[in-house]
């Protein structure tokens, strides 16, 4: 069967002055439908680059990236925009709602760019808002909602276009721990309902909520496997001193240093 996400020997190289930085250094990775994958790594590990490429916001320097069987690594701006629109649902750390639009209009945006008619847009936006329990707030502006509610709106927006992959970039980063747990629980629920979720985070305690963890360091995958495996959350050697309190698989309560 075809993989939903397939990285084959992907490199992303930035030219920083005289130095060539390998943000992704030969990464190969596959994600199938229905998976819940956390891509974990400290800053500089290449996880943001990986997320940009998975999210079709960037293209690899070399190697191929196939999304839903289609090679998207050589697409131009507008073709990528169309792929983002049809296949991806983004959830950002800062929610990234447009402040001037009300909740429903925000949720309708991906449908608007997909060319869906007004009536259908409204129907699907309300449906998505019902899934996150905010249909009654659809006339409100984002600024009138709490952080947790705003993040749920952005989840509804990600769901509205019925994407193949939900791509969550530090979705709990701006939330208190209680609300963060709610959002994570919601992502788990979505996954249980069949959605494919890719979560990008630096935080082990969040990553372990996924089923599978992919750990990146210096642009390379250093672990890829079950989230319950203790090795999934073990820090690279140089950071070991910081995680003395590491408790064990499944309940890594301590904050890993980013």
């Amino acid at each position: 069967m075809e993989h939903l996400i397939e990285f084959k020997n992907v490199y992303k190289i930035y030219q920083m002055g005289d130095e060539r930085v390998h943000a992704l250094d030969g990464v190969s990775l596959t994600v199938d439908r229905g998976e819940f994958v956390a891509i974990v790594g400290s800053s500089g590990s290449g996880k943001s680059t990986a997320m940009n490429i998975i999210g079709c916001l960037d293209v690899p320097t070399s190697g191929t990236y196939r999304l839903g069987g289609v090679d998207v690594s050589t697409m131009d701006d507008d073709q990528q925009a169309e792929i983002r629109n049809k296949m991806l649902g983004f959830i950002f750390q800062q929610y990234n709602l447009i402040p001037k639009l009300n909740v429903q209009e925000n949720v309708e945006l991906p449908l608007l760019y997909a060319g869906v008619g007004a009536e259908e847009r409204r129907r699907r936006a309300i449906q998505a808002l019902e899934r996150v329990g905010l249909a009654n707030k659809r006339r409100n502006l984002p600024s009138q909602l709490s952080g947790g509610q705003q993040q749920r709106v952005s989840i509804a927006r990600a769901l509205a276009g019925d994407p193949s992959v939900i791509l969550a970039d530090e979705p709990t980063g701006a939330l208190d721990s209680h609300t963060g747990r709610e959002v994570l629980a919601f992502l788990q629920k979505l996954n249980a309902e069949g959605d494919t979720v890719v979560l990008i985070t630096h935080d082990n305690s969040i990553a372990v909520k996924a089923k599978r963890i992919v750990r990146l360091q210096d642009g390379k995958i250093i672990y890829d496997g079950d989230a319950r495996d203790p090795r999934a959350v073990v820090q690279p050697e140089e950071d070991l001193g910081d995680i003395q309190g590491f408790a064990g698989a499944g309940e890594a309560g301590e904050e890993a240093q980013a």
Partner: protein
Amino acid sequence: MNFTQSFRLAVKSLLASKMRALLTMLGIIIGVAAVIIITSLGNGMQNYMNRQFDQLGANLIQVQIWGLGGMSSRSVDPDDMYALVDKYPQYLAGVSPYVMAQGLVRRGADDFDRTSVYGVSEFFYDAQRNQVLSGSHLGRGRFLSYIDVERRQNVCVIGSYLAQAAFGGDALGQSLTISGTPFTVIGVMAEYADSTEGSSDDVIFIPYGSAMQLNGSGWVDLYLFNSADQDNANLAKGIIETRLYQIFQTEDAYYVMSSAEMMDAMDAMLNTLMMILILIAAISLLVGGIGIMNIMLVSVTERTREIGIRKSLGAKRRDIRSQFIIEAGTTSAIGGAIGIVLGIVMANVLTNVIAFVLGTGNDGFVAVPTPGGIAVSFGVSVGVGILFGYLPANKAARLNPIDALRYD
């Protein structure tokens, strides 16, 4: 891309910062208002002049004669001009000398020193149209007749102001004096202007021979011809010029101008003047466009993150571009609409001011905005917005979504 949403967003963001919106649109508002005012004034002026010419009659041909001066014996006699009309009746319907007479008008103990006295012939009055060549209609009594003119009878036709002011309305058969010579009133003109002192209702028409006597000279320097019909006005003009050239042997002693020609010349002059003024106003539109471009560039920078969000959700370059172009177009269109309203209001105000200054009343000058002028200036303002919105919109469309999302 969804037009209505972009339009609504544009209106929303304009309303959100009214002061900034107003300043953005100011150039367009001033430019459009200026164009409307200029076209209204020009149009009003043209209407006014055309009406004046119509009242004078489109068949009118003015002949100005200043002679050769000095000792030259060549001169034009009114009889020469009458002979011309007799000779070419198919082209020339009539002629009247038009002599401004000097002299104090007096009725009893009252002086009327602002009254204009004109010496004319019976042809000055067109019985069919009940109208004299200077436009006004005969109200009561009769106009000067052939006999009056031929015998230089001391009779006169007076304007409505004089009839009221000197005779209390009952002027027929009464008399007044001009430089001491008594004249009997045989006719009263209908009100033409507003019956005030010094207006075209404050006039006296007398036989031109009498006027020449009052002036103490045998010289007629202005003749008014009537061509037989409008189409032949140029031929009629040629006939008169030929005859005058025979007399003077030079073109420098006289000037012949037909109404139609004069109207064309005035229209052409006015059009040129209007074009120049509109071009100047267009500079304001250009500056307005640059103002919009400036604010749009600021807006693109301010909304970099929004652009990033939209792109991440699948907005293509043309979606972003059209959003900002629609926004620029909306801004300039609203500015244009405000400018149009302002221009129409100003044109109205100017109409009243000019009417007040000229004292012409409602019948006089009216600055009318033309539908064409309104449509064009609105179109141009929208066009300017779109044109100058393109550069910022394109900048927005080309933003890299990753950088845009990270922008604070």
